[in-house]
């Protein structure tokens, strides 16, 4: 069993993943952490905006819209299933 690593922006709507690396950008990283997004957090892509960017993600019981430029920098692994 080997884990696949890819960026959060590649997660299709309805798909789930586990955060495996946060962005290097300190400010962004801090913001994400304060929202409860750390390595190991389960995240789901819920819906895209009409233009496809930003996309809304659900984690720890909240729905957050995040732009592609940010989700490009977040690395996830697939959920196993």
């Amino acid at each position: 069993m080997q884990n696949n690593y890819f960026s959060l922006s590649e997660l299709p709507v309805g798909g789930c993943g586990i955060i495996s690396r946060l962005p290097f950008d300190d400010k962004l990283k801090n913001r994400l952490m304060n929202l409860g997004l750390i390595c190991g957090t389960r995240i789901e892509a819920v819906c895209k905006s009409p233009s496809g960017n930003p996309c809304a993600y659900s984690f720890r019981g909240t729905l957050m819209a995040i732009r592609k430029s940010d989700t490009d920098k977040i690395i996830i692994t697939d959920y196993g299933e």
Partner: protein
Amino acid sequence: MSDNNIKSEYTVLLAGNPNVGKSTVFNALTGMKQHTGNWAGKTVSTAEGSYKYNSSHFRLLDLPGTYSLNASSPDEKAALNAIETVEYDCIAVVIDATSIERNLNLVLQILQITNKAVVCVNLADEAEKQHIDIDYDELSLQLGVPVVRTAARKKLGLKQLIEEISNVASGRTKTYTVTRKYDDKTENEIKIICDALSDIPDSKKRQTAIHILERKQDITYDEKIRNALLKVSELNGGETSDIIAKARVGQCEEIYKLCVNRKNGEYRSRDRKIDKVLTSRIFGIPVMLLLFGVIFYITIVGANYPSEWLSSLFSFIGEKLTLFADNIGTPLWLKNLLIDGVYTTLSNVVSVMLPPMAIFFPLFTILEDLGYLPRVAFNLDSVFCRAGTNGKQGLTMLMGFGCNACGVTGCRIIDGENERKIAVLTNNFSPCNGRFPTLIAIISMFFAGIFPIAVQSAVSAFILVGIILVSILVSLLVSFILSKTILKVSGKSFIMELPPYRVPQIGKTIVRSLLDRTVFVLGRAVLVAVPAGAVIWLLANIHAGSETIISYITAFLDPFAKIMGLDGAILTGFILGFPANEIVLPTTLMIYLSNGTMTDYGSLTQLHDILISNGWTIKTAVCTLIFTLMHFPCSTTCITVKKETGSIKWAILSFILPTVCGIICCIAANLIFDIFL
């Protein structure tokens, strides 16, 4: 029981994440009508209220809603600043029962600073609907402070909340700090900092050290601490703040698992279904356009009736006032100044502005309560992203169509400093309710009038939509230029919560919003329209030589106005309309008719005749439309810009920017007309 210790006044801070119903709790406790929003960052300046309990007076300060105390946004800075500087007796932290895990992050950060706290688990009714089981006793045990279950909208649990706040504030309930261990490495680093802290009492050392490790900005450390920090960062490559933040998320998860049981795994399935439609590629934008189209239609058409009622009511009162003034023998000049000058302007401002405001904003607020507005920002974000800002600006722009001053205040919801300033500066490009009547009158007289009567109103609506689109485009273009020049926006990062949909409290919203707007319009009428009315009347009635002062001004401005395709009277109207846009056209008419009092036109045909006989052509109409769309904001908006940006510089720029745009466009339009038509 040490009842002797009871003070007569306590100070209580109200903290919490955005969207947790904090303002509802605040309103319910204090009875003060602070506007509540299902939206991040409603309360930026601390609101204050008070209530009485057991013969003690409780002062309640509402802090801005924040996700953390990291001081990385103005909201967080304000909240942290309040917690650090205000001498409070208790902090009440409001959290959302439906997303306790995320909310705990802020709770833990606050509990690190103080244990004089009460946690208020709000929206408990929503949580129960979603089958979320919360063990309140366990939560209280884990946090070391009282936990109260509330549903502020239904007024549930507020009595207990008041009681617990009182108990903690007076010290009757002993709270304690739960020391949460970090991993050994972090603990070691905390100890290094602790040892460097000399003049702080032992009990506070640990939390201070953790704060310093999180690299709280705005603190100048002494040398000892700086050395200790150096030592820590040598130990690990500058990763300390992450470790603390990460450990805290872990702690939240732990507490959450202990205290909350989600029976229903598939939560929020209703919201998902709604979002699938409202943000979908096919329906997202059309539904949005339809909704706002309907709102604008209701506002513009619906406002006509109350406007007419108000204006006939005002003229009735005006007649009575004239009679009264005659009876008590008021000097003629004073009577004219007060009734023709002050009273006419006041009634004009109120009857034009109040009805559309009282219709538009309650509708807007209902959408806000519903949770739909963040979806609008979500849908619009990509457009605004290209202009260098973010989707939230779309909302402030929409609010600007109601009232620019309100739109500028609304810009508080925008996080980035420069993004917010851009939204503030460009808000005036959205024509407000005070300008709509002018736009509509000109459109229907000069453009729609050409078409057969049957289609005239449709043509008017069509042209109006076109004008709105132009204003949006200009706004985006100027935003783009600003974001690339004086207000550089660094990076494209944008994260925004999409809160759960909630059933709006329609009745309450309408009543409160109606009252808010009425107070706003009346306040503005008294503060702005009254003096403006007096000044304009004086200008129009004081003769210097053979002419009135206003005709000198008109003649002086005329050559320049002609270059812009206007005339002296129109430009004077705009300038004297600085206090309130709604008096621009009446003032211009007053000058045309030189009758010394602001004139409300009887019918559009009548108005059309007056304008034509004063030399208006299609060109004048187009240029007036352009200048109505783009000129200096009204004085209320300018003052609001200064208040919101904290500097006169931005207020001046917000004045100059649209004016220069307007002048350039008018001159260009004039040239095009002269050359090609």
